């Protein structure tokens, strides 16, 4: 598959960029994560091989930090803010509403791979609490009944 191969070539370029840098593993993984939306097994193995670090070190890092996912994420990433201000203003209720609407638990992706539902602790829009972010768009001062129409906006 041409696409896959092209990406693999890009991956090598990415890894080479950080090859000399001390502690570059995390930076490489971040770029891989950005490129693929998650961390594929093959990519992790390649990173370990090229940077000459034990595979378990790479895997350990991949599972420790929440910015990384080992499973493909949905087309749209929903981040429900559960920072203190949003929590106090009912952020939990919004999260529960989204779980019901999408029929997933937090941290999971819908079966049609359309949405991934995650939580984040403070995106810094506290005056708009409760806030959710879908990809780059932030929606504030949310009420539960507004959730379905917002979801519809994202195909």
């Amino acid at each position, binding site marked *: 598959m041409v696409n896959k191969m092209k990406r693999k070539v890009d991956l090598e370029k990415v890894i080479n960029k950080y090859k000399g840098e001390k502690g570059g593993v995390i930076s490489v993984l971040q770029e891989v994560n950005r490129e693929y939306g998650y961390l594929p097994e093959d990519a992790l193995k390649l990173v370990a091989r090229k940077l000459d670090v*034990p*595979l378990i070190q790479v*895997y*350990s890092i991949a599972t420790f930090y929440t910015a990384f996912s080992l499973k493909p994420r949905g087309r749209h990433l929903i981040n429900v803010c559960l920072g203190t201000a949003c929590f106090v203003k009912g952020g939990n209720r919004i999260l529960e509403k989204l779980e019901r609407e999408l029929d997933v638990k937090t941290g999971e992706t819908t079966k049609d791979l359309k949405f991934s539902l995650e939580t984040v602790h403070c995106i810094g829009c506290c005056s708009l609490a409760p806030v959710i972010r879908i990809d780059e768009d932030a929606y504030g001062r949310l009420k539960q009944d507004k959730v379905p129409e917002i979801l519809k906006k994202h195909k």
Partner: protein
Amino acid sequence: MLNLIIDGKEVSVEKGTTVLHAARKLGIEIPTLCYHEGVSPYGACRVCVVEVVKGMKPGLTASCACLAEQGMEVRTNSPSVVDSRRLIIELILARSPEVKKVRELAQEMGIEKARFRKEDKECILCGLCVRVCQEIIGASVIGFINRGANREVETPFQAQSDVCIGCGACSSVCPTEAIKIKEMFDKRILETWHTELELKSCKICGRYFAPKKELEHLKEKIELPEEIFEICEDCKRKNLTRKIGEIKTGII
């Protein structure tokens, strides 16, 4: 040399000595779980906590990882230490109620049973296996994955490891029975690490005696005669006995 006071007694130790060892010099035994002489200290289980009454950072600290300071004052059994140690062991007991070493520690502290919901984990996350594999063997097969309450010791992708040499060092330092290794015919199976390794058969008697990978690993690291990597322990012993005999009777 520096001087510190532990439980009211003065002791003199070399720079770089831990409080745990300084205490031992005085005959004071502090219980440990994640500490082992052969690998670096980790300071994770917190069973070995002591109270630094006077020092750079007063408060409770893990004695296995705390370096002795000049003029330091330490209590190994103050009420704060005893209370903390007891609760820590109770927490570990709740997680691993069937582990023999944990039950022994609990008994020593007078804990009958844990006041928390019981779990049944064999691994106590001491990290000794991880450290021995990384620091001594140099294979780095296993490590900690995930974080917080989901922390586990595993191989990458929880699958067969490409770098495990099957030496079993992990199992020998493990304070519990969590690491399961068995042999079946021509394979050594490290169940816990989802790994199967081919065993080498003895050139002389044909018995399967060590994982091929382990022998290759040793070959690279140490210069030894070929036969060490080709014949099993029993045959080696027989060989050696024969050679000694030959020397004695003047054949060689």
